[in-house]
């Protein structure tokens, strides 16, 4: 599925939900914040948020360095 993630187009094969996208980027288990088409998605909804082609995702991955 083609998705717009953090401003860049990505073709992600076999991806259906927000959880799948996080897994693809190896962000499952990490502390992230996800916005899907302009609305923040609650962590509990990652697995049941079903994506459609060209959906827009913003994913922020919390990091600790500095």
């Amino acid at each position, binding site marked *: 599925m083609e998705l717009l*993630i*953090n*401003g*860049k187009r990505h073709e992600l094969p076999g991806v259906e939900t927000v959880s799948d996208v996080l897994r693809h980027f190896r962000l499952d288990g*990490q*502390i992230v*914040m*996800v*916005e899907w088409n302009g609305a*923040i998605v609650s962590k509990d909804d990652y697995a049941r948020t079903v994506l459609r082609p060209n959906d827009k995702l*913003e*994913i*922020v*991955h*919390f*990091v*600790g*360095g*500095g």
Partner: protein
Amino acid sequence: MNIRLSDPWERYSRQILFHGIGLEGQKKLKASRVAVVGVGALGTVIANHLTRAGVGFIRLIDRDFVERSNLQRQMLFDESDADRLVPKAIAARDKLRAVNREVEIEAVVDHLSAENAEALLTDVEIILDGTDNFAVRLLINDVSVKHRIPWVHGAVVRARGIHAFFHPPKTPCYRCLFPQPPEGGGETCDTVGVIGPIVDIIASMEVTAALKWIVGAADRLPTSLVDIDLWENAHAAIDISGAKNANCPACGLGRYEFLDERRGEAISSVLCGRNAVQITPYGRRTLDLHAVRARWNALGHVRESPHLLRLEQEGLTLTLFRDGRLIVQGTDDVAHAERLYAEYVGR
């Protein structure tokens, strides 16, 4: 605007010409007080901008000393600071004094802790994040929520950084977005590396938010959590103005768990990614480093600087600060480090 050469504001002339600041804004900067927690990569860039911009009082808080591996990105330090093991807060203050004598810079060589956080962070109007771990940010966040002091968050690893402005209860707090530190401390600059350019960008965004706050341009403050990846050319921004969590332990329920954490005993912490343990004794103390050195000379190679004592022994490097803090490099075994503390420093 006419700016005369003898004008005391001349050094700030380009900033005063900028419509967002002006002479009024410059006067507010001069009257302002800020704290920078952590004077490493982000913190040195932040402190440099704040000093040049003419912020009146800057408190620099850092527990560490300069090492060679810092020089690639920590822009206020040089080789001689690393060779002499100068504490970062002191090295930064000394560099910045030469940049702008009008600014009062206070160097605090200490670990920000539940014991000292309120004393160090509540007499300023904004707190800037130059730290390198989640636990200390959650502590800053507790102070921010409890005392209604805004703080500017920034964090970096690899070529990626994030940034947000928090002023609870008007905005969500850090803990609304992120209730607990990740297991194992998450990724840090010491485990996955970092490049200088992302540090400069995130730190500069932090300072810009602080300037806006100080000059009273609150309507220009960012309302998004921003994520920039310079290597992947990716940029994300999530509007967090509606992300307040009613059940947030800090700003929702008023429980300051990081500020109220165990007090009254020594605190040992693994410095994530550094294969090091820090032991912070309870209460204020001032060690006679000369006396300690006399004992340590028999144990291994010892070096002494005005601020610290360093012992190299059996693959471990022990760095003792005058306030009694000990950093043991070469182990992440807290119990082992505590035994060394009892044996070599004493209670």
